[in-house]
């Protein structure tokens, strides 16, 4: 199958996402500009205007309306896409929850950016990570290729009948959204086979009228939430299945966790997004110096992957270093706390060090990471403080 993909281009993370959306041919795109996401919706607007992409493009007047329009369209059975970032993400917050409780397979790209005040347009994962309980499937990507591939898979995952959940593809502002890297394209005909037409079973129809979103009493509400979680858990297996199929089509393999020199590692670095890639560079350098260190990159935060637990159980590393680009004030690094809770579930006692780094676009060079990895002190460390 690899012979089918002939094209390679050199594009930004944003353009890669737009190119993936173009292949998915959504019925409706609702979009509002925000830095550093804007390029995604600009590229899509060009595709629509030139006729290359036959989507209805709604130039909404806010992100709240962007997600509302997506919900309206998906409630009619349409495939929809939107993209946002940071304040836009928070502005659509009510609708983000609405979309997931309504069980609509909306796909959204979120270009992670810090929150104001003061205005800061650089990378920070707090926008998305603070919404890990919103009921969306959340992916965090680390390269242009991965942003593209994950967006392609997101439609298939979200629309799977066993899942029917909105799905968010995160890419960090500037360090990924605006960085140009080579991108191998997926063949359109192949992708059409990979992604069947969307069918939303509870969409409104004129043959048998029903109401979506009517009052729901305490007798039923908890069942809706129970069912939501059931499907979110099921999504974990569906994602693995889709990733396997995607590999057959593209030759590129993904997993909920991506291991880098982990197998014999005594120290395991756990991180998400581009910081994990930076950690890989630091890891190579430390390996040369004889340190047994590896990087476990978490690609999928929700559903929290079973694969992560399996790896942690299997790997022999005794020392865990967790890097967080998002912090829960008064508690801890968000990923660090999630990992620690899971270690408790597994009955594992590990030495855990939490590194808070890269907030608001703070530059985190691999040399600095190397130094922090080598510092044997445990507990929480804020880079630069």
């Amino acid at each position: 199958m690899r012979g089918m993909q002939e094209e390679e281009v050199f594009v930004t993370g944003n353009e890669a996402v737009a190119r993936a959306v173009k292949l998915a041919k959504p019925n409706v795109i609702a979009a509002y500009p925000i830095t550093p996401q804007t390029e995604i919706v600009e590229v899509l607007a060009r595709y629509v205007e030139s006729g290359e992409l036959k989507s209805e493009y709604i130039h909404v007047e806010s992100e709240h309306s962007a997600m509302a329009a997506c919900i309206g369209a998906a409630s009619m059975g349409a495939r929809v896409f939107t993209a946002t970032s940071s304040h836009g993400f928070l502005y659509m917050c009510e609708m983000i929850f609405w979309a997931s409780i309504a069980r609509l397979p909306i796909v959204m790209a979120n270009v992670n950016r810090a929150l104001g005040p003061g205005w800061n347009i650089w990378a920070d994962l707090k926008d998305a990570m603070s919404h890990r309980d919103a009921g969306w499937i959340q992916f965090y990507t680390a390269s242009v290729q991965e942003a593209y591939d994950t967006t392609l898979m997101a439609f298939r995952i979200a629309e799977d009948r066993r899942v029917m959940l909105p799905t968010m593809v995160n890419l960090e502002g500037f360090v990924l959204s605006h960085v140009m890297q080579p991108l191998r394209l997926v063949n359109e005909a192949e992708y059409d086979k990979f992604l069947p037409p969307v069918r939303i079973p509870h969409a409104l129809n004129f043959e048998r009228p029903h109401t979506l979103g009517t009052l729901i009493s305490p007798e039923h509400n908890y069942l809706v939430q129970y069912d939501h979680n059931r499907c979110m858990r099921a999504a974990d297996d569906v994602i693995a299945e889709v990733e396997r199929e995607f590999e057959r089509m593209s030759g590129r393999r993904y997993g909920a966790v991506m291991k880098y020199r982990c197998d014999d590692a005594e120290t395991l670095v756990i991180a998400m997004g581009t910081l994990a890639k930076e950690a890989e560079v630091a890891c190579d350098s430390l390996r040369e110096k004889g340190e047994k260190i590896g990087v476990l990159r978490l690609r999928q935060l929700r559903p929290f992957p079973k694969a992560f637990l399996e790896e942690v159980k299997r790997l022999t590393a005794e020392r865990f270093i967790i890097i967080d680009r998002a912090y829960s004030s008064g508690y801890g690094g968000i990923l660090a706390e999630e990992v620690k809770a899971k270690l408790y579930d597994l009955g594992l006692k590990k030495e855990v060090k939490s590194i808070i780094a890269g907030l608001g676009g703070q530059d985190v060079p691999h040399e600095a990471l190397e130094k922090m990895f080598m510092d044997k002190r445990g507990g929480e460390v804020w880079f630069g403080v």
Partner: protein
Amino acid sequence: MARAFNTVVVSMVEVLGKEEHEGMEAVRGEGKVVKWLAEIPADEYVLKGNSACAGCTAMIALRYALKASRATGRKTLLLVGACCMVVCEGVYPNTAYNVPTLDTAFACTASMASGVEAALKSFGRRDVNVIAFAGDGGTVDIGIQALSGAVERGHNFLYVCYDNEAYCNTGMQRSGATPLCARTTTTPGGKREKKKDVPRIMAAHGIPYVATACPSYPMDLYEKFKRAFSIEGPKYIHILTPCPVSWRFPTSKGVEMGKLAVRTGMWTLYEVEHGVFRLSPPSRRVVLRGDVVPVEKYLRAQGRFNGITDEEVERIQKMVYQELEWFKEAAARRKLW
């Protein structure tokens, strides 16, 4: 019970409603105009057992909207904002609305309608009337941004604001549509500001159709729905729907209260179609012939104006006269501005 009540309302309207089609044909000059209630389809798309309060006039508005939509021969897709009309549906797994219905969050009735309309367009469906139905809070306050954006984008849908002049679903709190001096639970001493005039704001968007209406004039209301459905693009109808619970008047007086609103000039019925302003028949005699009932009669009939002083009544009366003068000029130049 709701059904029985509605029957009572309808027969009251039959007795009271002779004035509204007076001069209607002259205004339209085309097509068949409904002159008698019996000509309005008897089919009901709001089912028995809905949980509307006794005397709810907003429910009359919704019923007529759905009847008029059906009469066009097209399908209906209803969106209901967070408002009384969503409560009236009843509780899951039941619904009282026999058309596909999408309930929306508070601020986004118009933007969800944008999405629905865009999806239908993408499917190539041209046979659907998309109706967004929301209250005054959801329209003039929290939803105005989404509404303004949706009509500016030119989506083909009808937005209906049923205006009971307060957040009546949550127990009568002040909204931007609450009139001057009205007592609400959040303005216990009476509102100090005037009502926000959203129909005129919508007309300023230059959309093809804007109308005001009142269920006390059901034929006029029905005709306006019909008119709206015949026009491509964004349409807006603002309906004054007296609420017996919040306005504090007997449940049997809803239709009367609407008529009083129109006859006193507190509410003026008109249409702006492709920029052309037209007074509707019930308001023509008020505005053009000066056949005006003093506002005091309207204000004193409602508990929400309890304790209003003579000076305040005088102030409101003056405001009304100014408004009527303004409408008279608008009627003469056939333009709102």
